[in-house]
């Protein structure tokens, strides 16, 4: 804990002591407990707790630890420091990105090996997607854009996977990943165990890649974002990262 935080902690306790007389007996115990309770000090890493937090100390009393940290955005911050700049977070997000990328890369490259750019199952799959929430869109795509679908399914999956694995244009690649997974989720319609199935979890994985900009963790996007081009056009970071 640094000096600033310690000061805040003491101020918090001092003000609490001044209110002591107006509190029920339990609060007096609570106030005295805060001092030896090391967690109280650790909690002050986050100043500006939005609402009072109450904790029960087993066998003693209920403590109000108004100033204790509870970071809504990162509840584990006090315990493991899982902020987005932390080593474990970086490791895990990079790992997740590479595995997700491999998933799509494998699916795409094996189609390329077997069928090249003539993946005829693609348009056929879309044509059977009748009566879905997407309306006539997939059927129309299958009927009128068959030549494109045949090429873009294997190529798209491969490029999406490649992008994620090397961490380049991750957000852009993931947008297409979400598009693919939305079609698979609706088309496969394997809802026997509910709407949340493996297809939907795959969709959410790609959304996670977008939201957390996972290409910045051991990915090429971390390097690309430092180039002059990106600095001149910072909006490119919405496609990178």
């Amino acid at each position, binding site marked *: 804990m640094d000096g600033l935080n310690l000061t805040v902690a003491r101020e918090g306790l001092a003000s609490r002591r001044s209110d002591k007389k107006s509190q029920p007996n339990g609060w007096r115990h609570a106030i005295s407990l805060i001092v030896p309770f090391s967690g109280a000090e650790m909690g002050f890493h986050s100043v500006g707790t939005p609402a009072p937090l109450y904790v029960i100390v087993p066998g003693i009393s209920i403590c109000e630890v108004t100033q204790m940290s509870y970071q809504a955005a990162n509840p584990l911050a006090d315990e493991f420091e899982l902020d987005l700049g932390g080593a474990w977070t970086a490791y895990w997000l990079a790992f997740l990105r590479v595995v997700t990328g491999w998933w799509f890369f494998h699916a795409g490259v094996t189609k390329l090996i077997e069928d090249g750019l003539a993946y005829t199952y693609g348009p056929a799959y879309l044509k059977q997607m009748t009566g879905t929430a997407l309306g006539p869109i997939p059927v129309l795509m299958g009927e009128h854009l068959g030549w494109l679908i045949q090429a873009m399914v294997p190529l798209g999956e491969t490029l999406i996977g490649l992008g994620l694995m090397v961490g380049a244009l991750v957000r852009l690649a993931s*947008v297409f990943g979400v598009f693919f997974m939305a079609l698979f989720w609706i088309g496969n319609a*394997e809802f026997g165990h509910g709407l949340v199935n493996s297809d939907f979890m795959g969709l959410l994985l790609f959304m996670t890649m977008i939201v957390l900009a996972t290409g910045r963790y051991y990915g090429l996007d971390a390097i690309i974002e430092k180039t002059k081009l990106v600095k001149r056009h910072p*909006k490119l970071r919405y496609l990178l990262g």
Partner: protein
Amino acid sequence: MQQHTTVIDKAAMALSGGLMLLGVVVLGIVEILTGKPYSAAPLTNDAGEVIATPMVDPTLRTGLVLAGLLVLALYGGYRLVAPMQNETAAAQQEITAD
């Protein structure tokens, strides 16, 4: 790192999250409460005949989720075309006399 959220940010989060949670969780609870089938797929017997259909059409539920994703996509498009927040802040910076 501190991030400032605008009304549009909050609206996008609330609307997309609301739509997706409505489709997946809320209507999922309705599906359970209304009896078999407890999921979004029709129940069949050994002969393959449908013996119970979902209370809420899965098309509606998946449609709500897609609508939520669409909101996020539109928000992403908006962020691409709208001025960046630091650009706006720089443009709006007040000059005060001391």
